């Protein structure tokens, strides 16, 4: 700890999340109404300094704790935000360890590049200042999420991330499709957050009850709160929860929360629609940062996940299935951003099942997954920004009326090619190393089914990536818009170039030394060189794509006819969206909220009106007793006398 004590970066690590927040306030309230240009610059600068700071912090941290040695989680700054109960305090702060540094670096770096790119991309759009405010808000909440020392702060920023993505997706709020997409994104992630919240509550309460009975576990300070990760990830707690039989359900609940944010299988429907937002947004949020939040969460709680065993397995299989499912759909899509969205789904599937196959002892999967996260952030962001440049130029998303852009937009073409190679896992580029490690870890831990899926998807990924590349950049121009296309301005190309460089070189980083869990670092031990089959499947995918789409396109049209029905089903994304729509509108709205609204109006409300009506009826009935006949009145009186006398007689005796 002491080595870091005097490091400037560590001591004011809180600046990293704080800078975007301050600039969000400043730009949002003051600069936005004044001048757009200034807003863009200030926003970008704040995130850039945050990036610089986080790199400096990373440098200090890894110099203090060299590769291979144990990487302790140090809290650089925290204050007690909320105190529910004795052992249930929430101290908001900044936790610095290898995982959070990785995420901080990735998030700030990609975010600053996207900010830079957006200055060019968004020029002339109305609501320019508003865009940058939201972007800063997103960066702030994402950073808040990754540096959280306790699970409740994670949940808090988890929600803020959800809201900022809602605001960004719905940026073009005049477009009904963007509005419904943002609504859909928020509600689906909110649905997942519900399970996450229940999971958090469950763990916190179990921890609280345990601590209020037996006090804090030995190794931890006695005012530790049941939310803190240090408590949750301590092995004693996991064992205790396991024998209570609560660990697995809690972990699965939290995993559902992670699945929602990272758009795994059942909850993935919002990500493709999220493409309605401006492309840099998709690049930042739906490629590099937000969607990996789920992966980060599982990684952060890896020890309890591993302790529960089944939870990890569930993660594994869900990840694998998503990986395959998304890859298959990606092959059929025409919109360039939709394809990239599905490819993100599939890559995240990779990361999740990499974590899934790992275990307390076999931590290679953990390192592989984070390594892939690290590399994927760069080349996927590049792919999206490239696609953005293309769309910016030809003003359409549909790849079939692009084509032959290579000549028109050389830089974009090259950078896009590098990224495509990287993602397909071709040797020198980053994708190869991270994807290879994942497949190796799957093989190493004898999950052969997942291994097979990983291998197959590597091929499919290569296929649909090159399909996109070939159709957009090579071949003849398929629409006259292409002829007018010209290279993107400087502010847009610089980030492309930087990202391209990174996706090329990132693979060579000895990731294992830096990021690992448990004692020894995660290195692929010898045995059968897994990278060979992985590379082969990737190359075969490229070949097939080349064969179908290069040259004339009849062959691809012939292929689609032959597949026929299957093609249509895949193209329609297996009708999952329609199922969801059916469930929400038809079942929830028609069969639950409508009857409740009706029930409330008719029965409960009716009940009140009924009592009112009955009193009036009673009044009318009794008023008819007054017949006007004096002698009826006197009869009432005499009978009244007799009644009272008899009543007294009966009651008193």
């Amino acid at each position, binding site marked *: 700890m002491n080595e870091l004590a005097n490091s400037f970066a560590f001591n004011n690590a809180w600046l990293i999340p704080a800078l975007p927040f301050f600039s969000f306030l400043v730009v949002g309230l003051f600069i936005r109404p004044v001048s757009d240009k200034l807003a863009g610059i200030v926003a970008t600068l704040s995130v850039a300094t945050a990036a610089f700071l986080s790199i400096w912090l990373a440098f200090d941290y890894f110099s203090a704790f060299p590769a291979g040695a144990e990487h302790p989680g140090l809290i650089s700054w925290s204050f007690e935000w909320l105190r529910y109960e004795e052992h249930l305090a929430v101290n908001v702060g900044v936790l610095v360890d290898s995982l959070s540094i990785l995420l901080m670096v990735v998030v700030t770096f990609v975010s600053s590049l996207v900010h830079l790119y957006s200055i060019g991309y968004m020029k002339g759009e109305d609501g320019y200042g508003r865009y940058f405010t939201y972007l800063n808000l997103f960066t702030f909440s994402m950073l808040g999420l990754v540096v959280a020392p306790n699970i409740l702060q994670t949940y808090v920023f988890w929600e803020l991330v959800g809201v900022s993505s809602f605001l960004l997706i719905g940026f073009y709020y005049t477009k009904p499709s963007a509005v419904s997409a943002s609504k859909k994104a928020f509600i689906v992630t909110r649905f997942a957050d519900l399970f996450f919240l229940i999971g958090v509550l469950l763990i916190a309460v179990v921890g609280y009850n345990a601590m209020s009975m037996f006090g804090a576990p030995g190794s931890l300070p006695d005012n530790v709160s049941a939310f803190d990760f240090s408590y949750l990830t301590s092995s004693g707690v996991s064992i205790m929860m396991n024998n209570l039989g609560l660990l697995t359900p809690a972990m699965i609940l939290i995993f559902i929360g992670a699945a929602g944010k990272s758009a795994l299988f059942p909850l993935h429907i919002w990500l493709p629609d999220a493409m309605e937002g401006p492309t840099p947004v998709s690049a930042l949020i739906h490629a590099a940062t937000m969607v990996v939040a789920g992966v980060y969460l599982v990684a952060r709680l890896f020890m309890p996940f591993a302790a529960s065993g089944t939870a990890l397995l569930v993660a594994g299989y869900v990840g694998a299935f998503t990986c395959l499912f998304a890859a298959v759909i990606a092959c059929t899509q025409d919109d360039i951003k939709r394809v990239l969205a599905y490819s993100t789904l599939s890559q995240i599937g990779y990361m999740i099942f990499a974590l899934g196959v790992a275990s307390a002892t076999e931590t290679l999967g953990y390192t592989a997954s984070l390594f892939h996260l690290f590399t994927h952030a760069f080349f996927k962001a590049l792919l999206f920004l490239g696609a953005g440049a293309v769309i910016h130029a030809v003003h359409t998303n549909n790849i079939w009326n692009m084509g032959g852009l290579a000549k028109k937009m050389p830089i974009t073409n090259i950078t896009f090619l590098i990224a495509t190679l990287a993602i397909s896992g071709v040797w020198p580029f980053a994708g190869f190393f991270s994807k290879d490690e994942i497949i190796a870890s799957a093989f190493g831990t004898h999950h052969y089914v997942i291994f097979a899926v990983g291998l197959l998807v590597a091929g499919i990924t290569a296929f649909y990536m090159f399909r996109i590349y070939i159709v957009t950049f090579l071949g003849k121009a398929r629409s006259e818009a292409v002829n007018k296309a010209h290279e993107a301005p400087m502010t847009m190309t610089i980030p492309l170039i930087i990202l391209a460089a990174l996706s090329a070189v990132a693979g060579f980083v000895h990731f294992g030394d830096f990021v690992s869990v448990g004692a020894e670092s995660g290195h692929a031990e010898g045995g059968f060189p897994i990278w060979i089959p992985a590379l082969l499947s990737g190359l075969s995918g490229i070949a097939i794509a080349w064969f179908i789409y290069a040259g004339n396109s009849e062959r691809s049209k012939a292929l689609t006819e032959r597949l026929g029905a299957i093609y249509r089903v895949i193209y329609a994304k297996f009708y999952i969206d329609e199922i969801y729509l059916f469930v929400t509108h038809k079942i929830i709205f028609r069969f639950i909220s409508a009857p409740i609204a009706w029930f409330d109006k008719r029965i409960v409300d009716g009940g009140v009106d009924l009592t009112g009506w009955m009193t009036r009826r009673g009044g009318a009935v009794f008023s008819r007793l007054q017949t006007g006949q004096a*002698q009826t009145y006197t*009869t009432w009186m*005499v*009978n009244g*006398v*007799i009644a009272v*006398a*008899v009543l007294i007689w009966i009651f008193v005796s």
Partner: protein
Amino acid sequence: MDITLNPADLTHTIAFYTLALTSIVAALIVVTAKRIFRAAVALAVVLICGAGFYILLNYDFIAGVQLLVYVGGIVILIVFAVMLTSSLESIEEPPSLGRKALGLFSSLAFLATAVIAFSETKFPLSSISAEQPKDVAKAVGRKLLDYGAGGYVLPFEVISLLLLASVIGAIVVARNPKRKNEGSAT
């Protein structure tokens, strides 16, 4: 069951039962007579029998007052009212059956409750008549004007107010509106 019949009791008892019988029959006529005038006469008979009862209870003074005031005054007043409000011969159709049944039920129920109540309760009174102050009139007179402890001078004053107020009220209500206006018009 010894039946002791000495001459004084015998006349006393016979007088009681005859008077009782006549007064009950007359009362029934009062309430059921078709012609209202006939009812007025029956009322007079009932009141006279009442006076007879008072004598039996040896309250001759009260009997006298009853005869004078009640029979002499009030019944005559009622006859005037009968004449003022309807011709002598006017036949009054009987009340509706339902009302008669209800009236009968109520009165009989009251009678039954009262009789049962009497038979059940032991009145703190001696069953034989205690010796009565010889001169009822003097005793009543003295009591009425006695300011002391047992005196009833207060009700005496109050009853006068009551009669005055009733008379004033009656005049105002029954005054003929036409004549009053002419009077003031001149």
